[in-house]
């Protein structure tokens, strides 16, 4: 099996099967399985609710929903990056035994995270609607927003996975970087309350735009207030760069120890 044996059909078949298998394995590993994807944001929700609404008294109307709508997509991003960042590094033993196109390692993690995210996000929609916020046509933007976020995640995850084998120490700070990004993405507060330059700086962060779009659509019943195209383009560019890097280093990764 070498590079030319892996055509697109074979890659897709491998991704589909290993993603299904991975999800099945995940379900077996913990008693609550998939439920953790709901429990985890719920627990964070409680923590942040206590801190912001009760201690700092910085919440506002619908603060819990506001947090919830931000935290679930955030988790999609953070779990994907934290797991796929070290994906190549963790597959070292495997890639010394058999040629595998390197992008498949992070991609299969992304696929299984996406499969977990979607049902949980559907639940978020149900909860929002059940809380009395009327459904509007703006909901039709959701697939687009999800696509943009998915592309952004794919770009970042592939980039991270492609460089972590070069600088293995990076893997140790991914968690911290993610926490920093979390605070800079307006998960806990409405970026709209910031002023002038600060607000504009925050809006340079594509995750801010994405989270705001989710809230516009779900909570305010309006179309996304900022253009999503730059975030989509950024994701595509990152993904393209990472694919090039991985192709260039395809035969170097197995030699890195």
């Amino acid at each position: 099996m070498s590079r030319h044996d892996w055509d697109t059909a074979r890659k897709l078949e491998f991704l589909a099967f290993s993603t299904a298998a991975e999800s099945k394995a995940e379900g077996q590993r913990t008693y609550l399985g998939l439920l953790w994807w709901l429990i985890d944001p719920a627990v964070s929700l409680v923590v942040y609710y206590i801190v912001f609404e009760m201690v700092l008294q910085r919440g506002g109307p619908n603060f819990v929903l506001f947090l919830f709508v931000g935290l679930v997509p955030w988790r999609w991003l953070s779990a994907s990056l934290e797991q796929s960042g070290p994906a190549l590094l963790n597959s070292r033993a495997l890639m010394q035994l058999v040629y595998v196109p390197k992008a498949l390692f992070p991609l299969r993690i992304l696929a299984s995270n996406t499969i977990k995210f979607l049902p949980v996000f559907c639940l978020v929609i149900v909860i929002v609607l059940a809380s009395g916020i009327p459904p509007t046509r703006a909901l039709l933007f959701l697939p687009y927003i999800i696509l943009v976020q998915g592309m952004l995640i794919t770009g970042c995850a592939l980039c991270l996975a492609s460089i972590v084998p070069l600088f293995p120490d990076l893997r140790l700070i991914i968690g911290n970087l993610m926490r920093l990004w979390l605070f800079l993405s307006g998960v806990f507060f409405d970026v709209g309350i910031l002023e002038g330059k600060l607000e504009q700086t925050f809006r340079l962060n594509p995750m801010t735009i994405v989270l705001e779009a989710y809230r516009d659509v779900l909570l305010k019943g309006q179309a996304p207030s900022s253009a999503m195209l730059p975030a989509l383009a950024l994701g595509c560019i990152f993904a393209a760069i990472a694919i090039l890097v991985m192709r260039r280093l395809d035969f170097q990764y197995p030699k890195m120890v």
Partner: protein
Amino acid sequence: MTSATHPTESSSSEVIRVSNAGVSYRRRLSWFGNSNRLWALSDVSMSLHQGETLGVIGANGAGKSTLLRLLAGIIQTDRGTITRTNITVSLLSLQVGFIPDLSGRDNAILSGMLLGLRKRGIIARLDEIIEFSELGERILDPIRTYSTGMRARLGFAVALAVDPDVLLIDEVLGVGDADFAQKSRDAMQTRIQSNRTVVLVTHSESLLRSVCDRAILLHRGRTIADGDLDTVLLLYRRSRKKAEQENFAGVVKPDTEQDR
């Protein structure tokens, strides 16, 4: 290079050719120059023909495993060339990509896909895999519940089912407990002896004698002999003896794998 008793006849049957190949590893990441390279293979030339079984002989650290990785298309040459015709080459690898929480069946499919089969190809061979691995109904249980022996049996059965055009073998022939080890060794020998192209790395002279037509001798990343098995083995023994004597005399410093 010693007598090519097995000259490169009809190049039509040649499936892989390696010419003056070098493969280097980086000792550590460095921004400047290539001074940090360690040449695991420095000058290897060989060819492999349809249907033959080629032995690769050499001391530890001579570059045998790196050569197999190169032949398998896992790594590429840093200098020199390797050409191969349109064939599948794979390293005999056991339990590749196994996930403990998955059933034996799912693991067999996943592993088979990594090793080069398509999904329908493995599913078509599942009965064969189950029978050879003697797992029966247990094939549906997660493999974390398997004993080490059961896992080894499944891994071997999958590897056997893959069946590439050129099979590369690094030492392992028999796995598992005594009975299964014999069975797997037999299966592998049958596979090798049937008209199959095989590259075999082993320290076992008796195995080499029973299956190989030809051998190459690697020494510190170079092919220093290529020819019929007896000649190459003789050279190998002579070089070992010499190295041992030098070791006794304390002439040879501990293996400091110098760069070339």
